[in-house]
Every structure is written in structure tokens, then in C-alpha cells.
């Protein structure tokens, strides 16, 4: 199981990447909020948002077409839903939901492609998210791909041995989950020992030092929020 492409893109050194994660988090939330509050967005407003996001993606040197395509991921599910809204006779609202959901997904993807998760979690910790929640999130992200790879390997092994269907297959699948659980449980004990031997004392999120806000960060924050408010008067 490979890491998503966004994780690979997040290790670059552009201006967008090096911007303080706290600023980016505030701006992302403000963007999502102002998109959500557009009750009946005009085509101009939607185009402005899309162009602004593309400009940010370009500044972060992300492969724009691939990011645009990856955000299409939301469309099947959202599309089904907005089709439903369309069929109940609310045609314009259906289009708004589709467009707004796409823009939201696009902005989240740009954000996560330009911010390594540890820095994002340090920012979340700065905003007083519970320490345990942040640490567990960090650990889940760390071991997700390890255990995911193991699960995939087990399924391939199952198929290679001719596993097909029927109640025996359900039995085998439960066995796989049970073995996966046992391995994870043992792994957790080993991870704890390894962490202790490296000086773990109950505090996981401190790898990234957060510097105080500078003038530049403040200016970017204000400009971003002013633009988002201005969006509603276009």
C-alpha cells in the first residue's frame, strides 16, 4: 500500500510549503466556511475561487492537472446526491452542491499536498486539540500503510491458495482480521519498547518547533481573509 500522492508532494520547498501551518489551517477553514456560506454562488464567484486555487497550486509547484483530477474523487458520491436533489426539483441547488463540494475537496487536497502531516498536527496542537487525539492521529497515519500492506499481502496469499467463495471464505476472512489484530497488538508492544529506548516520556508531538507569528504571516492572513470576505460582494 503506497502513500497517497499528496504525501509525496508535501515535501517540497516552495513558498506555499514553507508558510506556517497555522496560517494555512486558518485560511483553509475560512475558505471552506466562506464557500459553505455562499447560498447561491454566481458563476463569477465560483470561477474566481477555482482560479485562485489553481494559482496557489501553481505557486506550490503541484502537478495541477493531476490535483484537479484527484479532486474529482468526490464527484461520484456527491454527483449521486445532487442528482437526487435535482430530481426533487431543486435544479440550481444541485449544481451549487456539486460545484461547492468540488471546490472544497480541491482546497483540502492543495492544503494537504503542501503541508506535511506532522506540521499540520503541531498546528492543531497549537489550537488546543486534545494531545491524545493528535498523538493517536499521528500514529494512525504512521502505521496505516504498514498494516494496510500486510492486509493486502494476506488477501493476495488467500487468493493464491485458491480461496474462492461461500461460508468458508467468510471464515477465512475473519481469520485474516484476527491474525492482523494479533500482529498489530504485538507490533504495538514492540513500538512502545522502541519509543521508550529513544527517550519517549509521554510527549509525542514536539518534533516541529512553532515560531511566533511574524509580520509577513500576519499580512498574508489578513489579505486572505479580506479576499474571502470580498468574495461575497463580487
Amino acid at each position: 500500500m503506497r502513500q497517497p500522492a499528496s504525501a509525496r508532494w508535501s515535501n517540497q520547498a516552495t513558498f506555499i510549503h514553507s508558510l506556517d501551518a497555522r496560517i494555512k489551517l486558518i485560511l483553509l477553514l475560512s475558505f471552506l466556511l466562506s464557500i459553505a456560506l455562499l447560498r447561491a454562488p454566481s458563476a463569477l464567484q465560483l470561477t474566481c475561487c477555482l482560479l485562485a486555487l489553481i494559482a496557489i497550486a501553481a505557486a506550490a509547484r503541484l502537478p495541477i492537472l493531476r490535483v484537479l483530477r484527484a479532486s474529482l474523487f468526490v464527484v461520484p458520491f456527491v454527483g449521486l446526491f445532487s442528482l437526487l436533489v435535482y430530481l426533487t426539483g431543486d435544479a440550481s441547488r444541485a449544481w451549487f452542491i456539486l460545484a461547492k463540494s468540488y471546490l472544497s475537496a480541491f482546497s483540502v487536497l492543495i492544503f494537504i499536498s503542501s503541508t506535511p502531516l506532522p506540521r499540520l498536527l503541531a498546528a492543531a496542537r497549537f489550537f488546543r486539540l486534545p494531545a491524545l487525539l493528535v498523538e493517536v492521529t499521528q500514529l494512525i497515519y504512521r502505521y496505516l500503510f504498514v498494516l494496510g500492506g500486510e492486509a493486502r499481502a494476506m488477501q493476495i496469499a488467500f487468493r493464491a491458495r485458491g480461496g474462492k467463495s461461500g461460508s468458508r471464505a467468510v471464515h477465512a476472512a475473519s481469520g485474516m482480521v484476527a491474525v492482523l489484530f494479533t500482529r498489530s497488538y504485538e507490533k504495538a508492544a514492540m513500538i512502545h519498547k522502541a519509543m521508550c529506548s529513544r527517550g519517549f516520556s509521554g510527549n509525542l508531538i514536539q518534533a516541529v518547533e512553532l515560531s511566533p507569528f511574524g509580520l509577513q504571516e500576519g499580512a498574508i492572513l489578513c489579505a486572505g481573509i479580506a479576499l474571502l470576505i470580498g468574495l461575497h460582494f463580487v
Partner: protein
Amino acid sequence: MHIPDNFLSPPVWATLDGIAIPAVAYVSRQAQRATDNSRLPLLGVMGAFVFAAQMINFPVGLGTSGHLVGGTLLACLIGPWAAALVITSILIVQALVFQDGGVLALGPNVINMALMGVLFGYLPARAFFHTKWKSYGVFAGGCCSVLASGVLALSELTLSGIRMPGTLLGASLGLFTINAILEGAITVSVLRAIERLNPGITDSVFGKTESIGSYSSRWPKAVAGLAAASLVLAAGGVLIASTLPDGLENVAKTLGMRFGQPAFVSPLRYYRIEAFGSEWFSRTAAGIFGLVLIYVICALGGHLLARARRSYS
């Protein structure tokens, strides 16, 4: 069942976010109390385990396959508080890294799946765990967990003013029921296999078989009954609300409020600042003020509770 952004109307998601934030803080404190440093890696790895277990296909016949959702299983293995926290973390990773579910809709998703999903999965399992109906309890837990999440998501959509025709609503409720039964069956089967490989793994959550008898027999059953009743009520409520949308709207009108308006705007309705001249701005300002108000009330309440508890001890 991950709700993306912009599905729910702003009043609905804002209210649910406002509820979810203090709730998650509380859950996290409870989980912290039950967790020492040596269990921290366990929680993280269990989250990754649920992710991985969701990738394993369970063939259910007719060429289709289901997969584990995992809330109930996790609650049985590491306890309800830790399970709710781990599922919350999973939802955060899914929303941010995999764009599965919205960021602003995290509050509703956390309430549906992490808080209520785990609660409704844990209670039935707990009620019957040390009786001979243990498997049925776990099965009921898996069912209730998925049903509760689905019904909550549906009712949030209905509250957002999406009118679903009755047939469609029936179809989706039927789909939820099938999923719920699958989840129950898979949870029972997986839990049995895990206990065979790791005897005594659930002792830390449910206690040993001998010692718990009196505790698990009475009140959890009452709570489970209550939970089941409320679930049925909620499901019925959604059905009635969707088949009689006009009736519900009439009731709301006679009560003096209209759908699509946040409940917390009302105290601020007369404070709209005309100088800004914008409907949007005043509404947003009122909404943000409402959120801040909720936050302050929660913080104050928590502070007072903490003080009361300190004076007891």
C-alpha cells in the same frame, strides 16, 4: 456514510460542530484517564488496524462483498472511550488525507460514527457480554452501531432541507439495514476468531467472567433498551418527517421558526448591524457569535464541573 462538505446546511453542521468539539474533548479526557503511556502506541496501531481490516473483503454471496466498519469491534477490544477517540482520529485522517468526508462536516461525522456509532455498538455488547447470549449482544451491537450512524446521517440531511421521496428513503433505510446485519455478523465472526487467538483479550474492557456478573446484569440492560427505543423513535421520526414534510414545516411555523435558520441566531436577530448593509455579514456574525457563546458556555460548565469534583475529593 461520510458526509462531504456542503451537503448539510450551515446551521446544521455548525450546531453539530459546536456539540462535537466539547464532546471530543470530554471523550479524550476519559480515554486519557484509562490510558497510560504504554497504551498510547496501542491506540494508534489499533486505528491503523481498523483501517487495514476495512480493506479485507468479506464475500457475502451474490458476487458482492462487504467489509468491517469496526466501531463495535474496537469498543469490545480497547473500551468505549478509547474506541470513540480512535474512530475520531480515523475520521480526521480520512477527511484530510483521503478527502473522504468533509472538513467542516467533521463534527456531524464524528457524532454519527465515532460517538453515537461506538455508543450504540458498545451498550448491547456490554449488556449481554457475560451471559449465554453474548454473540447476540455483539451482533446487536454491530447492527445498532451502523443503523444509528445511518439514521443520524439521514435525519441531518432531512434537517438541512433535503426532501427525499418516501420510496428513496425506504430504499436507503433498507440498505442501512442490510449493512447493519452484515456488520453485526462480521463483528461476531471476527471477535470470535480474535478471542480464539488471544484468550482473555476482552477482559480489560468487560472484566473477568466471574467478577462482573452482578454489575453487567441490571442497569446496562436498561440503558440498552432505552438506546434501542430511542433509535426506533429516531428512525420513525425521519420517516414521518419525510412523508409529511409540510406537516413538520407547519408545526415549525406555528412555533415561530422557519427551517434553514439557525436556532442560535434568534437571540441576535435584533442586533443586526444595519451599517454593514449585508444580510450575509450580519447572519455570519451572528452565527460566529453563537458558536463563541456555545464555546464559552461549555468552557464555563467544564470549569464548574471540575471545581465541583475537586471539592468532593
